[in-house]
């Protein structure tokens, strides 16, 4: 059974703290993503990665960075957390592009972050 695991489900951090959100997938997927989910805004892409040590900015990268040192692990980093980063963060993964193969994206269960 495919699995994307987000180790921290609920976190409360103080403004200015450095925050790490960890994501691990066990499907040997090449592509990994971090999304942010907010009511009324849907899911917005923060960063994604097609390969180890490779990263690309999504639609809302400001205030975030990422790290992918191993294929199975993709970390989201908030260098200095702010209250407007209070949100639910979703990690996802898919296989490498294959023509006409309609790859499914698999999501983790989410990490609820509150910044006070």
């Amino acid at each position, binding site marked *: 059974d495919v699995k994307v695991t987000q180790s921290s489900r609920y976190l409360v951090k103080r403004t200015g703290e450095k925050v790490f959100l960890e994501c691990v997938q066990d499907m040997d997927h090449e592509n990994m993503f971090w999304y942010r989910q907010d009511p009324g805004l849907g899911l917005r892409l923060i960063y994604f990665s097609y390969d180890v040590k490779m990263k690309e900015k999504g639609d809302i990268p400001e205030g975030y960075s990422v790290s992918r040192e191993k294929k199975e692990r993709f970390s989201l980093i908030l260098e200095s957390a702010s209250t407007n980063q209070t949100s639910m963060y979703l990690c*996802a993964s898919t296989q490498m592009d294959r023509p006409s193969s309609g*790859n*499914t994206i698999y999501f983790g269960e989410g990490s609820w972050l509150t910044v006070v």
Partner: protein
Amino acid sequence: QQQVKQSPQSLIVQKGGISIINCAYENTAFDYFPWYQQFPGKGPALLIAIRPDVSEKKEGRFTISFNKSAKQFSLHIMDSQPGDSATYFCAAKIGETSGSRLTFGEGTQLTVNP
């Protein structure tokens, strides 16, 4: 800029009724349109998807209707059940393969009353 707009934001339906969620997109380069279902405390999961070369796709009680000229697509849930209560997201991307990025709608919270 929201490239995929979804409505309504919330929807209440009686058991056995039809639930309809609508999405409109702007980018004519989009050519893959999936719908995701998310239960509380869980991540979204793929429900059904369509490409624009067909006008309708049906899987069980779930149907996507696609109108390319209007740049709209919708999800119909027939014989809605309380177990269908969830948040539904439409999405779009360029290309069916995973390399291109999904653009999501705002989400619809569906409640099916018993």
